[in-house]
């Protein structure tokens, strides 16, 4: 197992390196290069030349990459001229909020999705199953902005139970519970649908295995077969799937934040895009890429810990 974990960690590090290379290339994709990006479109060529000399942008690309990476490792992600703050201080403020949103939504999606999947597998082809499957299809097909809108219309406009915007202001977000419900629901529902579908088919695949028949014939109670054996075996690929799905959840968070005006890094990124604030855009892209690699790695490590077969590779 140690060998497997070591390999996975090395792989993750290489991917992280790859992410930094991609972000670095994006920086240089910008028309006019980073100088124009940071100084603005109307900078004259002397200012650009001076900027290039100072930041070593006239050196060969690999050297530049090395300098940039060096800055990165010291925590310097650049400076946002539009917001007049360093990018890392902005991230420190906005990242925890998105982490709250994404973390809770993912947890909800796993717990409720897996639960529903088990229910559907056991009651397959019952009316319950059909209703849940149809709902799953609909939720899975709804773009987050439409789903959020529908939820707002139903719960805020018509019923008036919940406020239509996300949390705001200086009060800690945990305390603004009613404001958190709709954003989290909007983010979680499509993934609840996705995970429940997957869990259902994974459970079904396991239910037809021979070991279930053997356990029955040995007289093991149905409930124990279900939870101790079938559920655990079906859960394993779900964990890998979750790791795989994290980029989508973060992407969905961007739309949810835009819709509900939830001040997280998604909204930060979107505003930066509209203002062409490239340092912020690059910083957020980097952090988000790193976060998803970390999420994937965590899922794989969890898988290795739970699956006994991996221990022998």
């Amino acid at each position: 197992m140690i060998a497997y974990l070591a390999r996975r960690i090395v792989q993750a590090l290489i991917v992280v390196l790859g992410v930094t290379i991609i972000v670095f290339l994006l920086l240089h994709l910008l028309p006019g290069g980073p100088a124009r990006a940071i100084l603005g479109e109307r900078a004259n060529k002397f200012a650009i030349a001076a900027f290039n000399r100072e930041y070593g942008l006239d050196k060969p690309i690999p050297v530049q990459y090395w300098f940039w990476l060096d800055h990165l490792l010291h925590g310097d992600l650049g400076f946002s001229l539009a917001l007049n703050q360093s990018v890392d201080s902005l991230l420190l403020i906005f990242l925890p909020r998105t982490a709250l949103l994404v973390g809770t939504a993912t947890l909800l999606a796993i717990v409720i999705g897996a639960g529903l999947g088990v229910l559907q597998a056991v009651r397959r082809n019952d009316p319950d199953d059909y209703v849940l499957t149809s709902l799953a299809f609909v939720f899975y097909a709804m773009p987050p902005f439409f789903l959020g809108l529908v939820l707002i219309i139903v719960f805020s406009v018509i019923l008036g139970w919940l406020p239509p915007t996300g949390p705001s202001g200086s009060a800690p977000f945990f305390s603004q519970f009613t404001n958190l419900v709709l954003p989290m629901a909007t983010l979680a529902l499509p993934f609840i649908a996705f995970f429940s579908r997957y869990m259902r088919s994974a459970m079904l695949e396991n239910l037809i295995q021979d070991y279930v028949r053997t356990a029955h014939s040995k007289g093991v109670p149905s409930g124990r077969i279900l939870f101790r054996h079938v559920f655990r075996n079906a859960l394993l690929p779900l964990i890998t799937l979750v790791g795989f799905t994290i980029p989508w959840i973060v992407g969905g968070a961007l739309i949810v934040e835009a819709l509900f005006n939830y001040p997280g890094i998604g909204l930060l990124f979107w505003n930066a895009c509209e203002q062409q604030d490239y340092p912020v855009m690059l910083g957020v892209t980097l952090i988000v890429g790193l976060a998803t690699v970390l999420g994937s790695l965590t899922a794989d490590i969890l898988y290795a810990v739970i699956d006994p077969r991996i221990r022998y590779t």
Partner: protein
Amino acid sequence: MLVTAPSPGEQETAAEAGQAQGSAGPFRSILEVFVENKLAVAGVGIVVFMTLFCFVGPLIYHTNQTAVNIGIVGQPPSLRHLLGTDNVGYDELGRLMLGGQTSLEVGFAAALLATTFGVVYGATAAFAGGWIDSVMMRIVDALFAIPVLFLLLFLASIITPTVPILILVIGLISWLIPARLLRAEALSLRTRDYILAVRAMGGGPTRIVLRHMIPNAFGVVVVNATFQVADAILAVASLSYLGLGVPPPATNWGQMLSDGTQYTFAGFWWLIWPTGTCIVLIVVAFNFMGDAVRDALEVRLQHR
């Protein structure tokens, strides 16, 4: 509530059904199972209807989609404007058709581009093997780690989007999954006996790839391509919603929804529900179709 396997009766019928079709060719049997699946047929129907609605509709229901008419903004559905007017006076139904054109065009074209590129990339990686394969796959992993929407927004904010550019951008980001899929398929096919036989008979790599691998990976590719169209349509809608879609007077369903959102509390439901329903319908249709092809493939594989 029993914890039992599907009854033996179910399994036998499936096997019999598979066997009855076993003599037909691969495409035929997929088609047959596909047609039996009512949801899939419904999906095809929806797609055909939407395509006609968006492309043939404007020929029947004439509206002016270029000139703004402030005098009639925000009107509810009436006989003159079947779905009312939007916030600058365009007829909403006509707008729906126009928006659908962009969505469908970009959806299909981007999926085609992504699938083609991904298939070639994945097959090449599987064939090259060794360190080339590793490097190619690490590139895929790194690109995959960054959420698509962030990359899309980034690219869209640099380049002013037109329909071809949207197709290019979405296609260039969606090729990752077909690439991974095809590489996995190619790797597993490589070890099959019939490939070894072809090699023993002196067949070269081109022949193996073209005449054996691609037809066998075809099913997986088709399933993925169908889901790609659904994802591309969602991606275009998301981009347009966030304000980085095609510039007016062209429009897109996502953009229409974004405009309609401003009027949620004013109660202008005709700006919100029809558009949203269209998006959901067409994505659900493609998901049904993709699921059906996937199930059809599994039936075919069951009696192999």
